[in-house]
């Protein structure tokens, strides 16, 4: 399915929209797509990171595991989630729930909106790199479908850790990049004010990424959240039906090919 983009937006506009305060929250999106969501907390080691929400739900009567990065709505929640930047414990929770989904043979839907993994002292001490690495390593061979949707920011390894499965879709107003345009401009041109220019060069828009086969499709957005939910549900239903036709080893092999091409 290809989105019907009414008018062409610049990369900088898409970046602004992706980061907009108006973006729907993780919980709103989860409750719009799934019925009976039950949140499951904790990484079973030490912590429960608020920046990654996970749990079980029904999708058109089918049991699924849902994982979503969460930027929060209130000031308090935003501080607690570091504006949606997960701690290592968040990635350990997501991996725990993905392995649980594999045990019970239900698909995983990951909803991603994060500027990246949290760069903090405790995040370093608790092994941020190891936590992401372990996700990439394990998800590469889980025997259940993993479908990701980037609905706002898709920042670097922190986003990839939840977008390394069978399908990756992006909302029309979302971005996916190796680092922020500001960081990119600062490193390469020593001038973070050239972020808009960087956004163009980086090819971080859904359209560009679809051309490069980094993503599999674009979710059309509209003012009506209801309409967005409907579009997402239609896409998920089709993808799940298609992926269900594959044997577990075919599924893993196709996932392998998906990333091997890069």
């Amino acid at each position, binding site marked *: 399915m290809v989105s019907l983009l009414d008018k062409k937006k610049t990369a900088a506009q898409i970046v602004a929209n992706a980061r907009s305060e108006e973006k729907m929250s993780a919980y709103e999106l989860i409750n719009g797509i799934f019925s009976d969501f039950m949140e499951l907390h904790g990484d079973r080691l030490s912590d429960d990171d608020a920046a990654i929400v996970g749990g079980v739900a029904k999708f058109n009567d089918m049991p699924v595991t849902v994982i979503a990065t969460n930027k929060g709505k209130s000031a308090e929640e935003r501080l607690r989630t570091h504006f949606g930047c997960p701690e290592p414990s968040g990635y350990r929770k997501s991996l725990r729930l993905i392995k649980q989904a594999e045990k019970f043979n239900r698909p995983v839907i990951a909803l991603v909106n994060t500027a990246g*993994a949290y760069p903090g002292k405790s995040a370093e001490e608790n092994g941020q790199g190891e936590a992401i690495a372990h996700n990439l390593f394990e998800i590469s061979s889980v025997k259940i479908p993993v479908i990701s949707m980037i609905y706002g920011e898709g920042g670097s390894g922190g986003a990839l850790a939840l977008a390394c499965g069978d399908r990756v879709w992006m909302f029309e107003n979302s971005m996916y990049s190796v680092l*922020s345009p500001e960081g990119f401009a600062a490193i390469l041109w020593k001038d973070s004010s050239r972020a808009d220019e960087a956004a163009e060069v980086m090819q971080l828009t859904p359209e560009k990424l679809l051309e490069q086969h980094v993503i599999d499709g674009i979710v059309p957005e509209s003012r009506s959240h209801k309409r967005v939910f409907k579009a997402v549900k239609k896409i998920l239903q089709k993808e799940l039906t298609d992926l269900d036709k594959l044997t577990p080893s075919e599924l893993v092999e196709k996932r392998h090919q998906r990333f091997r091409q*890069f």
Partner: protein
Amino acid sequence: MQLFDELKTLGHKHIKADKKAGEKVPSGMWIACPKCHQSFYHKDLGVYQVCPNCEYGFRITARERLKWLVDSFSEMDDSLKTTDPLKFPNYQKKLSKARVQTELNDSVLTGIAKVEEQTFGLGIMDPAFIMGSMGTITGEKITRLFERATRQSMPVVLFTASGGARMQEGIFSLMQMAKISQAVKRHSETGLLYITVLTDPTTGGVTASFAMQGDIILAEPRALVGFAGKRVIEQTTHQKVPNDLQDAERVLEHGFIDAIVPRKDMKKKLAWLLDLHSKGSGANG
């Protein structure tokens, strides 16, 4: 207000490893150790280029490391070249310079190595090749190394050194993390050994993928090992970060490194570990 400061800076984060440590050692001069700040005559560093005071291993090119690490080596994929997927301005010039400086086609040297009786796949990242950043060819070479090692039932040893992603290759640099991780997983599933050796600096996307996926994770003394750069952490959290936060010794204390091995012992230690894991060394053959 920390809340707003944090909001402002989270979008700006990027990784930058210690520039000073990358400066080339001028010959015939006194040089300062970037870790303990003592000065030494360059010849005092010896063949291993190690600080006589604190054992910090100075940054060396992959080919310099190869000289004292292996008994024999047959190089792989030395002519692959990046397609420059973003057609990034001045990137070709930067690549040419790095190729001359390191005698490599990209930021990793790969091949089949022999140490004592052990044959294995060996990768050595080069911190002098655009800060050891991970480009598509870096990823391709490492992936092919694992694929070949899997086919030929060989263990893999990988020396990591990286400032993180190759900005000039954008999202394609990021995709290497997933691509390599898959190859490491397949290698692992066949029961083969993978040893990583973290050298100064190992950061960003390399830390967040294959550097931390080894069955055994070794590090050189005082090597910087981390995910985010120190400056990024300080800008984001508005708190001072201790200087040794990302020293390998601290990372070991937190449980993410198996052992610190000085350069002079590396070859022997690797040979011993490879032998310990080789088929036929167990009681049941």
